[in-house]
Each structure stands twice: as structure tokens, then as C-alpha cells.
């Protein structure tokens, strides 16, 4: 199998996959579960419960707040304590539903058995039915972006889907949740892929995995051959060169089917690809086959100074504090708490932040690594230009954002930036390139939106 990769830029940070071979544990139930109403891209969900209501595991507690939105389901059984504000992964206080946990009673409609349900055994599953079940279960992208999955499966009329690509790359250092999911639930993931292909009405599927996960490649390739050889579907496991940001959806599409998605507002389906995270594929299986809405996920809790880093199957709404305690508590000294990995994760100021639909990891960076170094002047070494996976010029975009030259920023394609952080990682002068580019990008996107609104 020859190893493919994306064509422009890329870096090679240290892997630090400390929890690669740590088997997933089921996390303990929290005493109080906190559910932010905005765990997805789009309108926040609207609460459908009130203080004092009793809920079970799987009860809907908030309905979708619009078309681009998703419902939220309780991951615990107990009583609704209050509807209030609490700090979530954005760093700000946002509206949340807080539930006091009592017992662990599940909704009867959820199938809790281990039986593997196949698509052949369920002829009633038409593409529309599959998409509806995904929508009703509140499944969103589990790679971190949290885009409602049912919308991705129904592309706009201008774009035609040709294939589904499963993103099992997990290129970010430290995170191993997707890898453990593949090793422990490969069959379910493949059925999830089949459901996605059927829902999107395509017959070609790919599973992209980085070469640092040889066991997963072997396992999935073998199971793929067993399952899909001779069937209506063509599914290929594609080993990908270990490089960051291989898991970025545009880079993944470029590597797997050699097509480059044009600049925004184009999306991968404009070149025929629907990209879904492997965790989403698993959630799709559970939603469609087991009638289980999205309320728990695999999360890695890791860090060089954590006593026992591990992978957890955790109910959403569990405060990060509980997981950190289960791993031995916060290390001594300076610590940076990240929701996500060290490249694209967000630094938090509170350990009470709950695990949400997109929290694939809790990373704790300690000591000297936690503090940024003093920035030096830019020496125009052009290393940032050579690593940018989108072919941009980070030194220039950062400078333009710092002097607030929005017109030229737009001209230099700042909106194409995927905020991967390769530039800031590489810069030998420790300059805050991505921080400046982010400000430029959000301002320019605002300008573009208001220009479109005026028309």
C-alpha cells in the first residue's frame, strides 16, 4: 500500500501519544451534569425541560433551535436542578441545563445490547430514514467542529457527493480517542460508514488513517475486505503519511482523492467528498441501529505530568475536574488546561467546564511548556510560508492584521486559513502569528458578511 499525503506544507510535531495502548475505561458518573445549550455550529438548542423535571438517560432536554442546530439529550438520569449560566469551552458563561444525577436509568427505547445490527437486516432503512434518525439523535461532527451531521449528508443542489471519507487520522499530538475507538469498535464503525454512504447515496468510501497507527490500519483493512468485498460498496483503507495537519478535512480530501477544495465558501462536497470523523461514524451506528441519541463519547485525558493519563468513555456533561481526578489530579506547578490538543485546543481558566459533544481530549501542558516564549523580531526566514498547508503567507497575514489593513488581508486570502497553527509552531522567533491571523480572519469574515448583507 503506498502512502499518500497532502501536497502543500505541513509539519511534524512530537506525537506524545502517551495513551495509545491504554484501554478505554468507563468514566464514573458525575454528581451533577452540566449541558451547555450550544454544543454545535448553528443556533443554540432550546430547553424543553424545567427545574424539577425528572429525566432519564437519553431524554431530550433541549430541542434544535433552528435548521442548522441539534437537539441535546441527557446523559444521566436524575432531576433538573436549574437552567442557568456556567463556563463552557468558549471560556465564557453560557446558558446551560444542570441536572442532579440520581441512579442510571435509561430510556426504554435505547437498545443496550451488544448485538451487531447490520444494514442488510434492516431493509426499512432508506436514505431519508437514516438521515432523519441521525438528525433526531442530535449527531454532530465529533472531531471537534460539531457541524450537524444530517446537513452534511444532504448537500446543496450545486454539489454532488461522490464518496464518504472517514477521518480516522487523529494527527494532533496527545489525542488517542479515535484510535482506541477503532481498536475497540471496528465493526460498528464500518456499519456506521455503510449507513453514511447509504444516507448520502454514494457507493464509494475511504477510511484515512495515519501510519502511526499500524494496528488500526491492519484491523480495519482486514474487516473492510471481509465486509465490503463483493458488495455494492467500494471501501478502501488509505494509510496516510504521518504529518500535521493531515486530519484537516481539506488536506484529507487532497490526500485521499487528490482533489483540492477551492477557497471558502467552497466546502469538501463541492469536490464530491463528504468527510466524517470516525467518532461520528460510530455515533451514527448507535443512533440509527440502537436508537441511542448522542450523549456519550470517547475522550482522552492526557499530559506529560499526569499520574495516569487514559482514555475514557464519558457521559457528556461530566465536569473535566472529575476526569482529571480520575487520572491523578492536576500536577503541581504551572499548568495549561486545554480542551482539545496542543495545536488546536483552547486554553481554559476553569476545571469545571463540562465535556461536550466536541471534546475529544483534555490535555494538560505543564511547567515550561505551558508558558509562551518572548517573541523576537521577524527575520523573514519564510519557514511559516513553507509549512502553511493552505499555501498562504502567515508572516504577511499576521503583519496585515496587526496594522489592521483588512482590505489587503482579504486580497491575500486570509479567509482560507484553517487555523491549524503550523506557522506559529514553526516560527523560530516565537511570534504570535496565528493569534494575529485569527483576528484578521474574523474581522474580514465580518466585513464580507456585512457586504453580502447590504446587497
Amino acid at each position, binding site marked *: 500500500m503506498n502512502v499518500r499525503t497532502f501536497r502543500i506544507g505541513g509539519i511534524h510535531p512530537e506525537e506524545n501519544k502517551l495513551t495509545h495502548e491504554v484501554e478505554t475505561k468507563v468514566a464514573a458518573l458525575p454528581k451533577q451534569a452540566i449541558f451547555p445549550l450550544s454544543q454545535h455550529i448553528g443556533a443554540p438548542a432550546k430547553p424543553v425541560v424545567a427545574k424539577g423535571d425528572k429525566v432519564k438517560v437519553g431524554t431530550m432536554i433541549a430541542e434544535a433551535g433552528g435548521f442548522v442546530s441539534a437537539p441535546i439529550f441527557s446523559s444521566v438520569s436524575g432531576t433538573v436542578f436549574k437552567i*442557568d*449560566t456556567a*463556563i463552557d469551552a*468558549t*471560556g*465564557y*458563561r453560557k446558558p446551560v441545563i444542570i441536572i442532579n444525577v440520581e441512579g442510571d436509568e435509561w430510556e426504554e427505547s435505547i437498545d443496550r445490547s451488544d448485538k451487531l445490527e447490520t444494514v442488510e437486516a434492516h431493509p426499512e432503512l432508506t436514505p431519508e430514514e437514516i438521515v432523519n434518525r441521525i438528525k433526531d439523535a442530535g449527531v454532530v461532527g465529533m472531531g471537534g467542529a460539531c457541524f450537524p451531521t444530517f446537513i452534511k449528508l444532504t448537500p446543496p443542489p450545486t454539489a454532488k457527493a461522490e464518496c464518504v471519507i472517514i477521518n480516522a487520522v487523529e494527527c494532533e499530538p496527545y489525542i488517542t480517542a479515535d484510535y482506541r475507538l477503532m481498536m475497540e469498535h471496528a465493526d460498528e464503525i464500518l456499519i456506521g460508514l455503510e449507513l453514511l454512504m447509504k444516507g448520502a447515496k454514494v457507493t464509494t468510501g475511504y477510511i484515512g488513517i495515519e501510519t502511526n497507527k499500524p494496528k488500526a490500519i491492519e484491523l480495519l483493512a482486514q474487516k473492510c475486505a471481509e465486509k465490503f468485498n463483493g458488495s455494492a460498496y467500494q471501501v478502501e483503507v488509505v494509510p496516510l503519511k504521518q504529518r500535521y495537519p493531515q486530519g484537516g478535512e481539506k488536506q484529507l480530501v487532497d490526500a485521499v482523492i487528490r482533489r483540492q477544495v477551492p477557497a471558502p465558501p467552497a466546502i469538501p462536497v463541492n469536490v464530491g467528498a463528504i468527510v466524517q470523523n470516525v467518532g461520528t461514524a460510530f455515533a451514527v451506528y448507535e443512533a440509527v441501529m440502537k436508537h441511542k441519541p448522542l450523549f456519550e463519547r470517547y475522550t482522552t485525558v492526557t499530559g506529560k505530568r499526569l499520574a495516569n493519563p487514559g482514555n475514557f468513555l464519558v457521559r457528556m456533561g461530566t465536569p473535566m475536574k472529575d476526569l482529571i481526578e480520575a487520572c491523578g489530579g492536576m500536577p503541581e506547578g504551572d499548568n495549561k488546561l486545554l480542551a482539545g490538543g496542543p495545536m488546536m485546543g*483552547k*486554553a*481554559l*481558566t*476553569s476545571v469545571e467546564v463540562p465535556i461536550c459533544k466536541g471534546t475529544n481530549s483534555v490535555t494538560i501542558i505543564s511547567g515550561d511548556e*505551558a*508558558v*509562551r516564549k518572548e517573541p523576537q523580531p521577524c527575520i523573514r526566514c519564510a519557514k511559516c510560508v513553507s509549512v502553511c498547508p493552505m499555501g498562504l503567507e502567515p508572516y504577511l497575514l499576521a503583519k496585515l492584521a496587526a496594522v489592521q489593513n483588512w482590505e489587503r488581508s482579504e486580497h491575500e486570502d486570509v479567509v482560507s486559513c484553517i487555523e491549524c497553527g503550523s506557522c506559529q509552531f514553526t516560527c523560530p522567533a516565537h511570534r*504570535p502569528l496565528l*493569534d*494575529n491571523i*485569527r*483576528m484578521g480572519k*474574523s474581522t474580514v469574515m465580518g466585513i464580507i458578511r456585512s457586504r453580502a448583507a447590504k446587497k
Partner: protein
Amino acid sequence: MNFILIAVAVLGGIGLIAAIVLYVCSKKFAVYEDPRIAQVTELLPGANCGGCGFAGCGGLADALVKGADAGSLDGLKCPVGGQEVMGKVADLLGMAIANGEPMVAVVRCNGTCDLRPKIAEYSGLRSCAAMNACGAGETACGFGCLGCGDCVAACQFDAIHMNPETGLPEVDEEKCTSCGACVKACPRHIIELRKKGVKGRRVFVSCVNKDKGPVAMKACKAACIGCGKCEKECKFGAITIEGNVSYIDFNKCRLCRKCVEACPTKAIHAVNFPAPKPKPVDSAPNTPSTPNDSSNPKVEKEEQA
């Protein structure tokens, strides 16, 4: 003699050709400019200071003429020329301008380093916009001043500076031209343009925290908790409570300062009032007031502590 004649003829010829070429170019490539622009430029001070936000007085004149054609001169103002010059310009263009009362930028946050403890350390690009995008900041208040000085950088008149002890910006009333640059620069909309007031006296709520009372108090001791006492006290209907925070409408406020006394967290500030005469009964040691120079909330806090 010959060479003199030749030299004169040649140079004269060159001069004539150059003149013709220049004349033709000036006619063929002429750019039509509205004559009103030149007239307005005459009225403007001609300092080309950039205070209006345009590159020079010509730029402002251009925008004023365009604005007059579009129907409104809103947002266009020469801070150096002031009301007088703007009045003349408006007459020339046949427009009316709002009779502007002098305004000043007001920083509506009193979360000093003492009153609003830090709960985290930010290590990154030291800009308010960047810190705001990262999260609530280094304190537990997600609405308060971040202290990185985007407002200071935006001011072209050297009228706002960070106080290193309080960590908050302070506005120099004399220099502030109410151009609004700091208002736009603040990502949390803490700075507001308010009426300067008679003798520079004004009353405002120095907090924009929309969290519920107990949460706000936990983050900052000088927070507005939205209790509503000020609203009840105000006889002029100038105070409204919305989103757990109080707001004083500067057009209705009569500077009676009853709200200042009523506020339990001392979140309402009165600026440039004379010091009270010592009262016979020790009933209200917490009447805030400052001497007649620039507002200094820190001084008030210390008086009441």
C-alpha cells in the same frame, strides 16, 4: 552670436513643446472634482491632523460633500474645528447638524486589580481583541476591562492611558475629542461616549457585567448586581435595569446623585463634583466625589474603604 541664438531657439522650442504637452494632458486627463469640496476645505482648519479619521482636511471635505448628497452628515466631525466650523460647513452644504453637546469617552468598569482578583495568567498576544477571543480573560468577569490597551493604541489624541496600578484605562477630559476610536476598539464595549455635562459633572454606572448578582460579586467586589435600588431611587426615570446590570440615560440624568448613595456595591460613580461639606452626623461616609481634575475612580474607592 550664432550659438546664443541656437541655444535660445532650442531651449525655447523645448519649453514650447513641453507647455503644449502639459496643456493637452491637463485637459485630456483632467479629473472632475466637485467645486464644493474645495470650498469646504477652505472652511476647515487645514491642520491635516487626521482627527476626523480621514487622511487630511481634503479627505473630510470629500466625505462631507458625499454625505450631503446622501442626506446626512452623521459621524463626520472635525474635532479641532469643533461646533463652530461644523456649523459653517453645514450652512454651506445646506444641511442641518445636530446641536452637539460636548461628549467625552467614559470607561464603564471599575474592576481594579484589588477589587477583581486574577484567576489565571494569560500568556499570548497582549491585545484586548485577542484575549477576548481566547476567553473571559485573567479574571472571573467575562465583561470587564482586559487591560491590554487596545483603546490606548486607538486614540490619536493621547487622551487615554492605562493606569498601571488599577489596570484600567483613564480618560483625559481635556484632550478627549469624543471621536469614538476607543469605543470601537474596545471588544467588550465598555467605553461609551456620554455627555460631558455641566462643569464636567456626570453620573454613570461603572459596570457592564450581565451575570447574575452573586456570580458578579464573586468575580469583582465593585460589580453591579442588578439589585434595582438605584432604579427605585431615581425620580427622573433615568435608570433602567436590563440583563442584571443598571444603566443611566445621560439625557435624563439630573445629577442629583441619590443613586450613588443607594448603590450597595458603589458601582455608580459621580465625577467632578465638589467634595461634600463634613456632615454633623456620621451617616454617609461613602459619598464619592473627586476634585475638579480628571475622573479617578481609584481615589474614590480609597476614600470609601
